[in-house]
């Protein structure tokens, strides 16, 4: 691991931009293309938004982001201690949303899956959700 970062903030929607900008700044030294950077920011934004509106909903809580760099690869872990996801396969379906009243498009998971190289979702009902995003920049074949 060549560098790491830990960020913790209350589950307020105004922190969504703070989260994605911080992660984008963290990977800047890897010299990502604008497209790669936008993809990573979008995936992080989706995960953090899910933690705030689905993990915690009306409840107050904390979202934690841990980032680590390995050569040309970044690993970003977004974690909440909220309600958890009962059926992860269902949540990953395109157009699925558990909160249609919020005008969610149901595309957040699909966007994350498309914009990073790998995504892992671990969740326990009543305990919270941890989303791990991994993205490699450039043509490097380095492995973690």
């Amino acid at each position: 691991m060549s560098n790491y970062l830990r960020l913790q903030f209350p589950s307020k929607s105004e922190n969504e931009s703070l989260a994605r900008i911080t992660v984008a700044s963290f990977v800047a030294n890897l010299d990502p293309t604008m497209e790669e950077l936008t993809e990573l920011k979008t995936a992080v934004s989706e995960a953090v938004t899910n933690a705030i509106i689905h993990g915690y909903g009306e409840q107050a809580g904390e979202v934690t982001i841990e980032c680590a760099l390995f050569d040309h690869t970044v690993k970003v872990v977004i974690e909440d201690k909220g309600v958890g996801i009962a059926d992860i396969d269902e949540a990953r379906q395109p157009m699925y949303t558990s909160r249609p009243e919020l005008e969610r498009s149901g595309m957040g998971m699909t966007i994350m899956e498309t914009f990073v190289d790998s995504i892992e979702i671990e969740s326990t009902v009543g305990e919270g959700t941890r989303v791990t995003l991994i993205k490699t920049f450039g043509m490097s074949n380095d492995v973690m």
Partner: protein
Amino acid sequence: MPLVETRFEHGVLVISLKGELDHHAVEQIRDNIERQLAENHYRGLVISFRNIEFMDSSGLGLILGRYRTVREHGGQMALCEVGASLRKLFEMSGLLKVLPVYDSEEVAVQAIQGA
């Protein structure tokens, strides 16, 4: 900071969005646009993305929600000045199958007027 600029052009409401379109911003923008749609007689809605610096799936929900409002009103809707990264999101979501995208506001307004 104003996130929405509005003007009327021959019965078409033209909304120019600014800044970063995430869940936080969308909540305020949605209420603003809905108010404009409720207070004005219109035949169509054009949303311009020229000044959008970032958008996630919250923006898709915003667009689809306004599409529903405009269709219920019997109006037409179009999008314009969509950059490459936004276009990728629109394609992924299937939005381009229901909403036309034009290169400029002018062409989008003309398309609605001619519809």
